[in-house]
């Protein structure tokens, strides 16, 4: 029984490690500026995790194999412990864990401890059951006023854009997040009913969109293309298909698009969506 258990533990360990190393089940290729640093930290952590996991399981398997009662009448070692070992392994564990913990703050700090760079493009995000609304300020660069009382899905005014505000005249609201390659983008996230969460896997970025809050985040996409947006906070029965898309456009296409008046914005977005198919490496 001990030998069988040891064998299972070792086989399970090998298979588990193999699953991570296999390569089929990994992140999609990073498209953001902070992505490589994220991936590096993840790999470092997984190596620490993998070593600790494997060492513990192998030791457990070994102990269970080697120290089984063989019926020869001999007794176990009468030991209540070893204080020196306790201090040693506690100290080593603490150093490793705290180091990983501190290193694990770097990407976070880079994204969230400073405001968006001044040259960022800005997009307002209003999440709702069950679609994403991305609000663009238009050629004047100013977001028109919004008022929840003006929201009307029937008239397609999902975010309550106030048409009496002159700044709103050139604003566009579409379901696609459009960004410019190599340029930071600042999102102002909110939601108009329940909490949702914006999640783009190749971006290595996720952020809850909370009613009553205006959450400012920023990141910089580096690769032109189209990527899927999924909702990552339970928001109701259609949570599983609250799907949208993020476009990362070359500078000229981006500039051209955001200068377009409301009437042509959506049409152009639709064309660009066709131009850049969703493709993950």
């Amino acid at each position, binding site marked *: 029984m001990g030998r069988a258990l040891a064998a299972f533990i070792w086989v399970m360990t090998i298979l588990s490690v193999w699953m991570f190393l296999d390569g089929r089940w990994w992140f999609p290729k990073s498209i953001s500026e902070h992505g490589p640093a994220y991936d590096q930290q993840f790999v470092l952590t997984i190596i620490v995790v993998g070593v600790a996991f494997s060492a513990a399981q192998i030791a457990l398997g070994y102990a269970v194999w080697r120290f089984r009662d063989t019926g020869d009448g001999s007794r176990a070692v009468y030991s209540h412990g070893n204080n020196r070992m306790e201090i040693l392994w506690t100290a080593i564990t603490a150093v490793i864990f705290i180091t990983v913990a501190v290193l694990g703050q770097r990407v976070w700090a880079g994204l969230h401890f400073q405001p968006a760079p001044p040259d960022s493009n800005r997009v307002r995000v209003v999440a709702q059951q069950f679609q994403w609304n991305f609000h663009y300020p238009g050629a004047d660069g100013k977001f028109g006023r919004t008022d929840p009382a003006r*929201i009307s899905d029937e008239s397609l005014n999902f975010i309550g854009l106030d048409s009496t505000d002159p700044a709103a005249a050139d604003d566009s609201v579409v379901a696609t997040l459009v960004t410019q390659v190599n340029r930071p983008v600042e999102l102002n996230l909110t939601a108009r009913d329940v909490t949702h969460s914006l999640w783009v896997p190749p971006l290595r970025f996720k952020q809850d969109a909370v009613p009553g809050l205006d959450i400012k985040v920023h990141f910089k996409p580096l690769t032109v293309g189209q990527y899927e947006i999924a909702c990552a906070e339970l928001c*109701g029965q259609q949570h599983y298909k609250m799907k949208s898309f993020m476009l990362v456009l070359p500078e000229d296409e981006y500039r051209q698009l955001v200068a377009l008046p409301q009437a042509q914005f959506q049409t152009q977005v639709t064309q660009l969506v066709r131009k850049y198919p969703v493709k993950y490496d």
Partner: protein
Amino acid sequence: MAEATDPHEVHEGGEHEGAHGHGAHHHPPSGFIRKYIFSIDHKVIGIQYLLLALVSVFVGLTMSVLMRMNLTWPGTQWPVLGTLFPDGAPNGVMSPEFYLSLVTMHGTIMVFFVLTTAPQGGFGNYFLPIQVGADDMAFPVLNMLSFWTTLAGLVVILAAIFFSGNSVVGPTGGWTGYPPLSAIGDILNVPGQGMGMNLWIISIAIFCVASLLGALNFIVTLLNLRTRGMSLMRMPLTCWAWFTTAILALLSFPVLLAAGILLFLDRTAGTSFFVPGGLSNGSGIEALRNYSGGSPILWQHLFWFFGHPEVYIAILPGMGATSHILSTFARKPVFGYRAMVFAMFAIGLLGFFVWGHHMFLSGMSPYTGFAFSILTLSIGVPSAIKTFNWLGTLWGARIRFTTPMLFAIGFVSLFVAGGITGLVLGQTSLDLSMHDTYFVLAHFHLVMGVAAIFGMFAGMYFWFPKMFGRMMSERLGKIHFWPTMIGVYAIFVPMHAMGIVGMPRRYSQFHEVINGQDVMIYEFLRTTPGLVKMVTWAAILTAFAQLIFLYNFVYSLFRGERASDNPWEATTLEWVTPSPPPHDNFGGKVPVVYRGAYEYSVPGAPQDFVLQTTPDETEANAPPHGEVSAQGQGDGSNGHR
């Protein structure tokens, strides 16, 4: 083993006196109702908790199998489902809200009515008084009330199956019930956010009260009712675990109760604790205009301030039982007893400072996230200490592979597997991708849904002889162990891969049939269907394997071989008394303790275990093996070869 204590010995004063008397608490009850239904005997109450948990776990397990089936084969027409739930599964096809109600009920039932009942209310209630040498808990009537209140909570949540609306079998907010969805979901016409949500809150509120009634009992009993010679450092580690767990429960459940009341008020009394103003459902609904000024994040703070200690409430008793059982069947003292006690306290204490790691992306200040992250990774240190000490206990051992031992070893393996990924999830940076993915599911299921369950199985197989006076079948125990051990790894290890790929939580399906074609909804999940299918088959097989345990349990209750006082040749106080113990636990004799709880393989001792009640003087004069009643081969064979 004949006791050398004078049965009429009376306590002197001092720290061990307390309220302990010779059956002073209550006389043995008479009549079926007083004996088995409204009993104030901690042993009966413990068994009642265990039976409650047993019923709950099979309900929760069935729900999880249904969830897995929908994830793997969405759009399938399941005839039985269609007949039972024509609205939730029209033509037998499970609707998204039906799935979400399964998610919610599965989580709620498992976390509260399984993980927070059996380990503490079940085994703790039964064995804490006996292991410290008391004749009952400090407050037996309160104890009885805590069980019946828990049962009331279960009745309410089970009622939610039938009263949440036609298309669901419960509320649909997840076991975490985040507002605004849980506050205004009904106004938004989200199915399962009406009466089901109210019942959910009420059930949990009742459960909070029940938990508080129980927690106080544990603390007072352990501090005041220990028998003579049972100093704190001679207590079994199970007692330390139940003690720490009770403190955590006492401090965390009131916060959940408060949060639940506030949410209930938001739903029914027009308050705005968690609901901000300016909301809309797209068609100008009036009811939303009544809200203003509330904070959805406030709920998360309150919930997780409870929720994080809760997961330690779920695992600590299993850790105590594992230490206890490993030592027993390794025939070796626990390695680093003091460090183990310290580690449990450290885990319990730090457990109160880390709740924000559930909320890194919630919109709370990123600086707060930083603080929570550092504290979270610190909890890994006492957890690692415990793992090292478990390995140390096995090192140089003479392991007897009984069924409880197999599950205890399994606990160690699973706790390592599940706990170690905390190192990933506890980092703010890495949470940017991992939050709300299957990586989180893998992590918490391995620790809570498997390691903690293995702790319960180990405890059940270990203590069944004492509780019921009969042995469980070792053969069936091993037949239960193997598919379970293999199965749980097959279910939850692949979920890490799914999470890395980006599979989100609480999605009712990942592919659907459009124009006759089965299409992945998200292209980035295209590499996952094979894993999904494998996990589902593993889940189905593992679920069925649990029927072996159920059969063994029921069969052994009636036909198991009679158990001696000490079939495992163990050292602690529950093994000096008959199986099952008499009403006052020790038959009028007050046990006196002379040594620590884990004196195995003591050099020079006549046997490889020394009971806690063995005084030093009699060691040399100990009767030869075979002449006393509390003997066995220690492997459950009860003397038969």
